[in-house]
């Protein structure tokens, strides 16, 4: 740029007009402090993560990683621990929950961005978002004392009819079950999935939407040919985000899932998820290796959750330009 760099003439001239660069400005300390903060926080969280694995190590050593993950027996009094029933429960309840929540969320998103009169969209949107504000323990309480008894006759009906053909939908129907947990999880994930999906649909290019309408298309055509296809990636991100939330939900699930160590054969059977068994057994975990085994389950949950969430973030950032909902 300039041929006067660093020469004594420049320094003098620069000093004279008072424009000298100051070495240790407030800015540098500022940046330093912030960087230390970011690094420090990262390190502390990383340290905690490692600490959990370290605590759980004895259990992994005893059963082997694969052995622990696939073990189907969980009997603390015999010091036998296997994670599979809980992994099964987590996957089952989450997928069932998504099965219920996703269509509902997509329909709501369409309603609130396209189909409903503009005046209603705001308040209705707030109402749906409020679903997310209710603490999970309250959902659990309500689920246990209200939802489960109410659903029971319906469950018995299904189990008695379809259940005869498909054992998966059959008895037993004690009330608290995978299905009950899935319903509660669905209620809790609808606000998340629909919030993100609403943002995605709202950013559908107007040009395309209006093109379909101008050609005589109905709103259904718009949704079918423009809104949903264009929002595919964002929709996927929303679903994965909801999945992440469903996987980790603890208290609401604990209260309604039935608390059984077995792998239930029907969705109406009681069971456990990774999160709910930890919550349920932790305070009474006095057997050998019991606490460590529960923490090991926690590490499994941690890994699954990080993978799912990292996936959601990657999809979101890569395909949707970083939309973030207010959660």
């Amino acid at each position, binding site marked *: *740029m*300039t041929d*006067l*760099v660093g020469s004594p003439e420049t*320094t003098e*001239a*620069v000093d004279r*007009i008072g*424009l000298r*660069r100051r070495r240790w400005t407030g800015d540098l300390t500022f940046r330093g402090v912030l960087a230390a903060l970011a690094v420090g926080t990262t390190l502390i969280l990383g340290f905690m993560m490692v600490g959990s694995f370290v605590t759980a190590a004895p259990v992994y050593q005893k059963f082997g990683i694969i052995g622990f993950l696939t073990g189907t027996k969980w009997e603390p009094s015999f010091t036998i621990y296997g994670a599979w029933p809980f992994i099964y429960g987590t996957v089952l309840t989450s997928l069932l929950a998504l099965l219920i929540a996703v269509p509902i969320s997509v329909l709501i998103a369409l309603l609130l961005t396209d189909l409903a009169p503009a005046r209603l969209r705001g308040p209705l949107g707030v109402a749906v978002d409020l679903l997310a504000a209710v603490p999970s323990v309250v959902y659990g309480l309500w689920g246990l004392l209200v939802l489960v008894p109410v659903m029971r006759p319906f469950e018995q009906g299904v189990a008695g009819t379809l259940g005869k053909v498909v054992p998966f939908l059959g008895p037993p129907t004690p009330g608290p079950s995978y299905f009950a947990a899935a319903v509660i999880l669905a209620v809790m994930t609808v606000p998340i999935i629909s919030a993100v999906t609403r943002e995605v649909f709202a950013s559908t290019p107007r040009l395309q939407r209006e093109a379909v309408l101008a050609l005589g298309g109905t709103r259904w055509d718009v949704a079918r040919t423009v809104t949903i296809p264009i929002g595919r990636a964002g929709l996927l991100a929303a679903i994965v985000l909801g999945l992440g939330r469903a996987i980790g939900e603890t208290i609401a699930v604990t209260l309604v899932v039935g608390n059984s160590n077995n792998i239930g054969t029907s969705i109406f059977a009681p069971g456990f998820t990774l999160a709910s068994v930890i919550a349920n057994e932790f305070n009474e975990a006095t057997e050998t290796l019991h606490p460590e085994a529960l923490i090991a389950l926690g590490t499994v949950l941690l890994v699954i959750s990080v993978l799912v969430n990292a996936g959601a973030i990657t999809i979101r950032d890569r395909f949707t330009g970083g939309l973030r909902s207010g959660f």
Partner: protein
Amino acid sequence: MTTRSEDPLLAVETPQMTASVADPGGVPGARPEPAAGSARPPTEVAMTVRDLSAWYGQRRAVREISLDIDARAITAIIGPSGSGKSTLLRCLDRMHEVVPGARSSGQVLYQGVDIYDPMIEPAAVRRTIGMVFQQPNPFPTMTIYDNVAAPARFNGVVKGKAAEDDLVQRCLTRAALWNEVKDKLRHGGTSLSGGQQQRLCIARALALEPKVLLMDEPCSALDPVATLQVEELMSHLKADYTIVIVTHNMQQASRVSDTTAFLTMGEDRAGYLVEVGPTSEIFTSPKQQLTEDYISGRFG
């Protein structure tokens, strides 16, 4: 940090600057008509631009511009949209590089020193070369008083309440705003009209005691009355400050400025300098055909 009593423009001698014969009177365009064919009478030069080019990422916005900015005069930069006027202006106080991906090459000399010299702190440059923007932008969370005083306080220009009070009054007076706001100094910065807000921004820039004032289309967001106020203000200010103004309003340029530089977009879509000279010359007998075309409204 220079103080007001010293005037480094006169004190320093470098090869780039000629001895000063201060321009008599501040009336725009009233300098003696140069004899046909002769060079302009020697004036003091505040800044010199040499071969300045600027890019936004891969796209070049300004191509190799060289010109002198006279001290204590108003230099107008005119040209059609996209000709790089604002980019050029922003290069003069290192605001161009604030945009992510933006860069520049060439030199901008202030008192013989290139402001892009790595030894120099950009923030320091901006305290000496101030800027007023197109859209008035007083800080909404500060009072009128603080809008003027705070930047000066942060930069160490004043210390102590008495000095601040004095500075605020001085600057608001220079910006022809004091009488209108002296009773509401504690009101919010955005509680004023557009023209008043712009004058507040000018006062704020003046509080840092700059030597040069850059103005990027300062009147285009204002109504005609406010525009007139700001133009009058400029003619008074040029007695003490060097002013560079970008404007798309040719009448304003011819009304207000002493020197005019005409930029236009080249074939490579980068702006370049077509012609620069005394305002009266540019507007009555420009040397370039392009200038003539622009002035007479044939394009732009």
